[in-house]
């Protein structure tokens, strides 16, 4: 019997699941350091990495069975707990750095802004450490396990560069060949598996489904269209959202600040450690209040720092009103379909660091996603057909779904699921339904192993999903020089949206000139909203696109050519079987070619 593995490489937590040929998939326990003296098993591995001071654990500290004494970092539960007390030595949310276009993702930049850590790590290394840990854990359960063809999930909002870096981290960690899967799709596969044949009772041909995934630190949206005849339904992912650093942790922080201010007005000020304890306490309080709307308030106890627990515990409460006002109305306000999120803070300067969402209103981000999805669909006759004609586009400024699948810890609270459904229903003018039977906590890892089995056996329904964006390469115009004006950079579409794994597309009938032997700059662009663009299409101005990478490289001249020569090349885009996007320059005269990966390296 074969085993199929799925890895949820999450922003806050990682999980791992296994499926066999028969039977339900299961979450695997992950051995990790629990505290300064022990190790144990948890279903989740916090994606936190803690870099201790060299004098902190002179004898090495707690060690995992597979670790040597030289290990200079901890990850998992102990890292998260210890790191919360020493934030300067904690790497958290490394995954969000992996898709930060302006960060040096191979450079030792984490913990970001730390003044005490001497040897920092790159976002890529952190991913590698997490994956190595998961692999070692699996081997300790079963020494003969091969992780070949495991599936690793990434946010749908990850661009090609972040995806390629994830694959690179997997290779470095020794996982061998792996496949990537978008997290909202994984949640959907888990739901399909969970429903068995029943899922056809909940959706029908022509439906548009929204996967709404709000975890601890990130929000991720996708739209999946249901097509085909009744006995033979097909699924296609037609839109993905932008990377949004906004989630349940923001709610807990907002509530904790509210309680802390209330205490401060009454003359009690909390230190940092007490504030952390307060965040934990309001999280539990919020869950209790959301679960039971008739509860007016829940008491909150904040323990003292020293050993006098009873004499100095601070007693306060979290009110239902605060939770409704801050968590529900603050994060899920009912807004009009035209209300878009504020994208930048008003200040002219922003502190460097992760680009956290400036607007906490998830409803507005959802409106923006659905409005961009509409723009994307409108641009492509093919997509209009997939969503059942243009009638759906005329109804609203948003591309509205018929049903929603919820995922992520935030949606354990029924009140928040109801709020999102209410918002969507109000936009649609008709009731939007929830897909029943979701499992918000472990769905992504479970769905990933289900997908791994599906890929290996071919048995089951697959969501059709090509590249989520279209990709462009910057092209210097060949126009006449005009004094005082730089020529506009044009953008050549090299990979249209929806390119599937294992496919290749050549820019036919056109030749381009490549400078060789001297360093030159390549610019790459992408778009989530231009499904209609075809390969080879030249956009007059790249400014309307999102720049994803800029690369200065030197391409060696082919044999028989001088450095500094311009050589004619053809362009071909390939999406590998693993979903990696590559751009090839072919020089027909010498049969030489150069490959540019979008992450972006030259070979």
């Amino acid at each position: 019997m074969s085993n199929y593995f799925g890895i949820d490489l999450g922003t806050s937590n990682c999980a791992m699941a296994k499926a066999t040929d028969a039977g339900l998939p299961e979450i695997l326990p992950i051995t990790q350091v629990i505290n300064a003296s022990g190790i144990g098993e948890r279903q989740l591995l916090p994606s936190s990495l803690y870099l201790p001071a060299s004098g902190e654990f002179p004898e090495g500290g707690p060690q995992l069975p597979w670790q040597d004494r030289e290990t200079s970092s901890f990850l998992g539960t102990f890292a998260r707990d210890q790191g919360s007390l020493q934030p300067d030595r904690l790497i958290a949310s490394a995954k969000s750095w992996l898709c930060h276009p302006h960060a040096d993702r191979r450079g030792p930049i984490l913990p970001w802004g730390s003044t005490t850590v001497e040897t920092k790590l790159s976002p890529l290394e952190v991913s590698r450490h997490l994956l190595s840990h998961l692999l070692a854990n699996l081997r300790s359960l079963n020494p003969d396990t091969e992780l070949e063809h495991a599936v690793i999930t990434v946010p749908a909002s990850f661009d090609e560069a972040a995806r390629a870096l994830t694959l690179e981290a997997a290779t470095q960690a020794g996982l061998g060949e792996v496949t990537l899967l978008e997290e909202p799709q994984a949640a959907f596969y888990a739901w399909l598996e969970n429903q068995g044949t029943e899922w056809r009772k909940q959706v029908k041909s022509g439906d548009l489904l929204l996967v709404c995934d709000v975890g601890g630190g990130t929000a991720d949206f996708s739209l999946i269209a249901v097509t085909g005849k009744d006995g033979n339904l097909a699924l296609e992912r037609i839109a993905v959202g932008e990377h949004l650093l906004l989630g349940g942790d923001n709610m807990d922080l907002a509530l904790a600040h509210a309680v802390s201010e209330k205490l401060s007005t009454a003359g009690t000020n909390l230190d940092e450690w007490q504030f952390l304890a307060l965040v934990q306490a309001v999280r539990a309080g919020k869950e209790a209040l959301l679960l039971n709307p008739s509860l007016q308030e829940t008491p909150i106890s904040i323990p003292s720092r020293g050993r006098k627990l009873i004499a100095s515990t601070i007693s306060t409460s979290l009110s239902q009103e605060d939770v409704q006002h801050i968590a529900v109305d603050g994060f899920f306000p009912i807004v009009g379909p035209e209300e878009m999120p504020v994208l930048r803070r008003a200040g002219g300067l922003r502190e460097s660091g992760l680009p956290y969402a400036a607007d906490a209103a998830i409803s507005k981000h959802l409106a923006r996603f659905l409005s961009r999805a509409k723009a994307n669909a409108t641009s492509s006759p093919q997509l209009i057909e997939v969503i059942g004609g243009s009638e759906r586009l005329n109804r609203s400024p948003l591309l509205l779904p018929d049903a929603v699948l919820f995922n992520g810890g935030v949606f354990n609270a029924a009140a928040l699921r109801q709020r999102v459904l209410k918002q969507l229903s109000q936009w649609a003018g008709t009731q939007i339904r929830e897909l029943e039977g979701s499992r918000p906590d472990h769905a992504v890892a479970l769905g990933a192993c289900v997908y791994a089995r599906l890929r290996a056996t071919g048995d089951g329904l697959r969501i059709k999903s090509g590249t989520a964006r279209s990709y462009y390469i910057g092209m210097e115009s060949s126009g006449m020089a005009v004094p005082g004006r730089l020529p506009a950079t044009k953008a050549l579409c090299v990979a249209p949206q929806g390119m599937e794994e294992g496919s290749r597309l050549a820019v036919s009938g056109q030749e381009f000139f490549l400078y060789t032997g001297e360093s030159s700059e390549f610019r790459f662009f992408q778009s989530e909203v231009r499904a209609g663009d075809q390969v080879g299409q030249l956009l007059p101005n790249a400014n309307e696109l999102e720049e994803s990478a800029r690369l200065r490289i030197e391409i060696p001249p082919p044999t028989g050519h001088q450095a500094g020569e311009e050589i004619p090349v053809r362009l071909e885009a390939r999406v590998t079987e693993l979903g990696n996007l590559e751009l090839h320059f072919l020089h027909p005269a010498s049969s030489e070619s150069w490959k540019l990966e979008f992450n972006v390296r030259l070979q």
Partner: protein
Amino acid sequence: MNGSSAKGTEKSNAKPVTNGAESPLPRNASSPTIPPRMKNSLIACGIVLLGLNAASVYLPTQNLTLAAQTASAAIGMVLVFLAIRPQPNQEPKPSSPSAPLPQPPRAEAEIVAFLALLQQHGRLVDFAKEDIASASDAQIGSAARVVHAGCRKILDEYFEITPLQNAEEGASLTLEAGYDAPAYRLLGSVPEHPPYKGKLLHPGWIAQSVKLPRITDTNEKRPWPVLAPAEVEVNGN
């Protein structure tokens, strides 16, 4: 090289270091043999329950008599566990000579490590060690919430605890000959031979699974871990 399709080449470097008795998989209650370390977890479990019951006594809304009953039942449960424990006769043996395991940690060390978890998350040692004579019920109640939340989190994380009996408290029941004697404690006037007819006072608890952390830092200098490290706030370089 192409970062995506290259096969992993360093698999042989990550040789697993395990053996059967030290499997990191959660132990399952349905397995026919109970590992020797179960004893420690059972005692530790008793400590938690006692702690929780101690805390519940101070909750203003609690009925004292009920709390006392609960506490006594918890002690009973520990006794039950201890009664069913097997003799610790099988020591784990290293599976291969190339991967020698450290000496199996001593029972005391395991218990101290678990107590340290209860202190870390539920401040149990602080709570029990503090003088409460002059504290008000409201103060104690407020502190008890910290103890309750933390100890409960630890219980939920390391044990799967379910009621031993599904019947309601106060329900009548009859124990026929051959009943699972260690799972019951008979009170009142008990005849010589079963069947025993009576009323259920407390449905009991049972740990369906136990997955305690394994300690790693014992040495000759300190045979068990510290209960709570001294905390020092360091300010910059």
